[in-house]
């Protein structure tokens, strides 16, 4: 018989306001095996933990039940507490009487009764708990960063700085990501390229950092500390080891009508191209869909002009398999194409552009050399209208439900830059709210209004139509309770941002969870913001939620710190709640191995003593370092030989019985 102590937490008033904690402790005291029960304001506090430790010693407790917040919150804390007092950390069970009781019920009597039942279930389970010891597994001291934008680069550089090897997988031919396309950055207006390219060069030249550009993650196996990842190298049709990046091929390529993705399609590139001047690695890539030789077998001009002999039309995709201790997701975002919002005329009018397109039109390295010209006629615009919240903050099927967060600030930036370069241009911003919570952000926005004379009008644009080459904007001015009509030469849409499309299949490969918007879920919204709930998977940048550059970089470094903390360990303690096969019950039928996602089950011929007979039998054996404890095998096993430590058949049935009592 266990000697069980029950500790009921008030969690200040979080629990105590709706659950009569004293009554819970008092009632649970009379449960079989319970020799001590008490309640306290904050069990997780130092003094609360002291109470637990003292009670364990004083009452010779063998098992502990804590009625408190979710085990997902403090299970690890309390395991350490009971271990410090000398009992096995797995002799602890937590009854979740906060998230699953006090916070959702209003009636005190009802909530108290439920808390008692949840406590009983935990007690019933502890009776059947057994001490568990964690196995150790080694840590591969190398990290993988998926995505080579500013987030991925920063994380990789920080990890490399700590002395660990790190690989970056980037699906584009160069690292740099969205930031490389930007003109200036808020709130300081320094040039994006000026601050990004040194980091790109660092990443390219750091001998701890390997770049896998034009690559994709193909397959992920393993678990924290021991991931095995297959990377697909897409064929560039250019030998990256030979290419000097001279660019001769890109200027001679006769296939010239291919929209240049880097410039948002405002100009064209050759079939063989280097995305932009500062690309890292500076290596040419052939797009086989555009290449005349690849399509017709005639041309081959690039191969003729390449003195390095780097062109290789026969290149095939390759697969590289490497092991990693940690994986960082930094897959970033894209701006939506507002094609479904035709009231703004994006499909039909060239002068209606998205803000990312506008960045290129303002950028000195962009298609217009930094001169802001109307895409329709190449003339300077005189009046520009900016529209905020296009596709963000909505509930209809074409909208994103979230705030894209960066638009208010970059629109203020755009407005300011336009006024700075062309003081005569009339700039109007239509907004719902101006959201500027960041250091020096509101000051930045106020400068746009007060110093640069940008007009901010509270209200949305309802319709844009073109008439005689002029955009007619119909909008609300809510403060004036008026519908206003104004002419514009350009309309810039602050379209919503969304996670990159590659994120969803990647999440499936990583078994990392995502929210309904396809942003990666963090392990805890406040306390573990850069980790995925899946151990060994870390989140950097906008793959986790909309972020601006300062925030992305700080999260990227935080993420690196977490990765370094993991890679610094030689061994990891495995989850001891793993499957175990009872050798006298096992039929050796292999059904369990059929459903094991990790290949953790093998079979051995063993001498078994059963019912007084000693015989050789085929027996399932679980590799405890590989088993992750899902329990699929336990249900498929007809004889019940396979059971899960910590969640044993009898333990779960005891909980069922206690709840249904």
């Amino acid at each position: 018989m266990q000697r069980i102590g029950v500790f009921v937490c008030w969690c200040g008033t979080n629990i105590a306001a709706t659950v009569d904690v004293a009554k819970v402790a008092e009632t649970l005291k009379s449960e079989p095996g319970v020799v001590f029960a008490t309640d306290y304001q904050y069990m997780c506090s130092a003094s609360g933990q002291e109470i637990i430790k003292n009670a364990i010693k004083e009452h010779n407790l063998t098992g502990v039940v804590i009625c408190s917040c979710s085990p997902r919150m403090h299970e690890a804390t309390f395991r350490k507490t009971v271990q410090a007092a000398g009992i096995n950390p797995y002799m602890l069970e937590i009854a979740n009487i906060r998230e699953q009781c006090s916070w959702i019920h209003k009636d005190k009597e009802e909530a108290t009764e439920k808390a008692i039942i949840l406590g009983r279930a935990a007690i019933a389970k502890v009776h059947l708990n057994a001490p568990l010891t964690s196995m150790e597994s080694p840590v591969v001291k190398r990290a993988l960063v998926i995505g080579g934008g500013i987030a991925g680069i920063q994380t990789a550089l920080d990890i490399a700085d700590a002395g660990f090897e790190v690989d970056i997988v980037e699906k584009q031919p160069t690292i740099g990501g969205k930031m490389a396309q930007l003109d200036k950055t808020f709130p300081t207006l320094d040039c994006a390229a000026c601050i990004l390219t040194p980091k790109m060069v660092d990443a390219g030249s750091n001998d701890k950092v390997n770049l896998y550009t034009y690559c994709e993650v193909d397959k992920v196996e393993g678990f924290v500390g021991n991931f095995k990842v297959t990377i697909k190298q897409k064929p560039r049709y250019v030998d990256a080891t030979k290419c000097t990046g001279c660019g001769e091929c890109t200027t001679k390529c006769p296939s010239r009508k291919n929209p240049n993705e880097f410039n948002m399609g405002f100009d064209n590139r050759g079939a063989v191209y280097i995305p932009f001047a500062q690309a890292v690695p500076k290596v040419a890539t052939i797009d086989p869909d555009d290449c005349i030789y690849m399509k017709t077998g005639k041309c081959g001009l690039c191969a003729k002009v390449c003195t390095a002999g780097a062109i290789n039309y026969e290149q095939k995709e390759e697969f590289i398999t490497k092991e990693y201790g940690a994986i960082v997701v930094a897959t970033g975002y894209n701006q939506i194409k507002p094609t479904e919002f035709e009231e703004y005329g994006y499909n039909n009018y060239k002068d209606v552009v998205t803000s990312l397109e506008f960045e290129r039109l303002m950028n000195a390295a962009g298609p217009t050399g930094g001169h802001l010209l109307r895409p329709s006629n190449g003339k300077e615009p005189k009046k520009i209208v900016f529209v905020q919240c296009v596709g963000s903050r909505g509930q209809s099927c074409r909208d994103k439900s979230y705030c894209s967060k960066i638009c208010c600030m970059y629109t203020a930036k755009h407005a300011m830059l336009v006024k700075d370069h062309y003081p005569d241009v009339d700039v109007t911003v239509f907004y719902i709210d101006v959201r500027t919570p960041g250091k020096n952000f509101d000051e930045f926005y106020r400068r746009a209004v007060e110093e640069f004379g940008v007009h901010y009008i509270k209200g949305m644009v309802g319709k844009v139509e073109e008439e005689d080459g002029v955009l007619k904007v119909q909008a609300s001015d809510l403060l004036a309770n008026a519908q206003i009509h104004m002419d514009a030469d350009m309309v810039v849409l602050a379209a919503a941002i969304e996670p990159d499309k590659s994120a969803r299949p990647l999440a499936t490969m990583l078994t990392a969870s995502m929210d309904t918007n396809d942003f990666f879920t963090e392990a805890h919204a406040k306390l573990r913001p850069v980790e995925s709930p899946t151990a060994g998977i870390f989140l950097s940048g906008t793959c986790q939620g909309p972020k601006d550059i300062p925030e992305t970089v700080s999260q990227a470094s935080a993420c690196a710190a977490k990765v370094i903390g993991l890679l610094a360990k030689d061994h990891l303690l495995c989850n001891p709640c793993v499957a175990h096969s009872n050798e006298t019950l096992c039929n050796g039928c292999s059904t369990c191995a059929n459903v094991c996602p990790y290949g953790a089950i093998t079979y051995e011929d063993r001498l078994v003593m059963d019912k007084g007979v000693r015989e050789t039998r085929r027996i399932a054996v679980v590799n405890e370092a590989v088993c992750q404890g899902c329990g699929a095998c336990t249900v498929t096993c007809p004889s019940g030989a396979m059971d899960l430590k910590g969640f044993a058949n009898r333990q779960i049935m005891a909980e069922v019985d206690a709840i249904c009592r």
Partner: protein
Amino acid sequence: MLNTKISKEDLERISGVNTRKCMKCGKCSATCPNFDAMDYHPHQFIDMVDKGNIAPLLESKAIWTCLSCMACLQRCPRSVEPAKLIEAVRLAVVRQQGENRLAAEDIPELLDEDLPQQAIVSAFRKYKK
């Protein structure tokens, strides 16, 4: 006499509109093709009903001039659907005794040779109990 004791709950029930979903962006009034002919505008209908300020709407011109073209309903980012609320206010009026806007005897005067039946049927549906 027009009964002005129409409650917010009545209107929300008739229309199925939840005014609290509104984020006050003004897109409804921005997109309304008949803004100038309305004394109260779509966003005001949402705002005023939300605050229980309903009497002025019952006596407004806007309930008769709204085109029911659903531009506001289609383009509302929060799916608040102002057009349905305007319809509900109008219904709250025409369902009252003697509040028909249009009577059968008014029709001959309005007719012209090409006017489709559809116009008369629609107008009756909108303006008459």
